[in-house]
């Protein structure tokens, strides 16, 4: 199993394990202006994301709740850190950036400083069956900010 271990550690990087064990911004956001659910029927991941957007279109605060695997929880937690303080449009394009990063085989592009931590998710690329876990929160972000009422799913 000696050659298996390194890869696994690439998927379950320290930052991922940390965020999955101690998710940031976990819980309901009482005065949220935008919210959306994400469901991954494959593994039963269920997330609800909350955002408070102020009058100028800035995401003042973010949070999430739900349950899921380490990858989906870490991804949601990293997301809340990354998008808080962004303009809505920037957050959306950030969602697109990350989705593309995780789902295509293109060389990794540089990431803006505030997205730097999201590189921790890069390991999922090698695990096609887990990509959806990593992108779930980002789909839900997209849905929340476009006020889509259907829960986002990864199927």
């Amino acid at each position, binding site marked *: *199993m000696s050659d*298996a271990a390194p890869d696994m550690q690439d998927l379950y990087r320290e930052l991922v394990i940390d965020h999955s064990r101690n998710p940031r911004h976990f819980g309901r956001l009482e005065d949220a202006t935008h919210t959306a659910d994400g469901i991954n029927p*494959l*593994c*039963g991941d269920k997330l609800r994301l909350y955002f408070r957007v102020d009058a100028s279109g800035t995401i003042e605060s973010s949070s999430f709740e739900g349950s899921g*695997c*380490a990858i989906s929880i870490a991804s949601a937690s990293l997301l809340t850190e990354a998008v808080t303080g962004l303009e809505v449009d920037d957050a959306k394009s950030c969602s697109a950036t990350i989705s593309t990063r995780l789902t295509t085989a293109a060389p990794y592009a540089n990431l803006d400083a505030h997205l730097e931590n999201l590189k921790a998710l890069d390991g999922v690329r090698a695990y096609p069956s887990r990509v959806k876990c990593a992108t779930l929160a980002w789909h839900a972000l997209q849905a929340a900010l476009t006020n889509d009422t259907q829960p986002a799913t990864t199927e």
Partner: protein
Amino acid sequence: MGATAKTVTATDWRADFPALDQSVHGQPLVYLDSAASAQQPAAVIDAVASYQREDHANVHRGVHTLSHRATEAYEGARDKVRDFINAKSRSEIVLTSGTTESINLVAQSFCRPRLQPGDKILITHLEHHANIVPWQLVCEQTGAELVVAPINERGEVELDSLLGLIDDRVFLIGMAHISNALGTVCPVEKVIEHARQRGIPVLIDGAQGVPHLDVDVQALDCDFYAFSGHKMFGPTGTGVLYGREAILDAMPPWQGGGDMILEVSFDKTIYNELPYKFEAGTPNISGVVGLGAAVDYLQSIGMQTIARYEQKLHDHMVARLSNVDGMRLIGQARRKASVQSFLLDDIHSHDLGTILDHQGVAIRTGHHCAMPVMQYFGVSGTCRASLAFYNTHDDIDRLVAALDKARELFA
């Protein structure tokens, strides 16, 4: 179990299954997901391919040679299935696309026209969605009520509670022979006995029964028995509904189309006799040929030999898993077969599945299409290792070693 089983070995059987002879992530594959879908012996794969290379044509309506051969092969497989589960007559063997269709057929053709508001369908808390949702749909359509018999913390159906729920409004009882999520072998004999006394029909979801037990529908005395080809080492897209002849006879057809009719005019259509009345359209001929080959293969080993071997292996697996630190076994029924669900520490089942896969060990994770079971145990999913007779002690060692690795990684 015991002495006789000791002499049986899976090594030869394993070699019959081409898919087991491969590496995954550089490790020899350990396939512990047969409850989801079993692998096929070469005998089945080859039977399908050579049917297709030599004998294929549409069945039933042709005079030419290939059509005759195809019909013989298809109907011959029906005879094999009849023999395999010891049905009284080939008219009682309806070939479907799987357990799911078999149960939907009963819900829609047997129940829907007869159910009155206030009638009840009685199932148990450990059913697969295939034995829940069809009843929910027909209850919604008719105003009938779905009643659920409880399970206990070992994952057993509470027999007395179930029997206590039987009253005059119970129209049908549906229950699994073996739970796919928990491995529980359910007390179907006792339920059928009580139900027969009260004249209530019983459907057994045998998807997990047929691959592991020597099933005899006449001895069971059930009214319907549903199962899938792909869980008994045959092709996907095949399944069986066994039904007592008198009951099937009284049911209206399920789907309309070719082959299920004797005569069609725009005024009046006369349906075909059993079992064809329930087999509209071109059937899955090549799949059914494969199903017949799977029956031949299983009978060449013998279901009792298989059951004995598996029981020993199952008990060994449970014993080994119990000794893993941080292990929570889910499903500890006193009668249990082939399946063990579990959780390890606080590792999410999905993560554990990935880590095991990385070591070549294939298990299933998630809700196993049995969400109410997950709700009962307060978990969103479990890891499930499920056995077939092609698994070995070595497979169990590999599983346990992989679990140890996972604990290291998440330590």
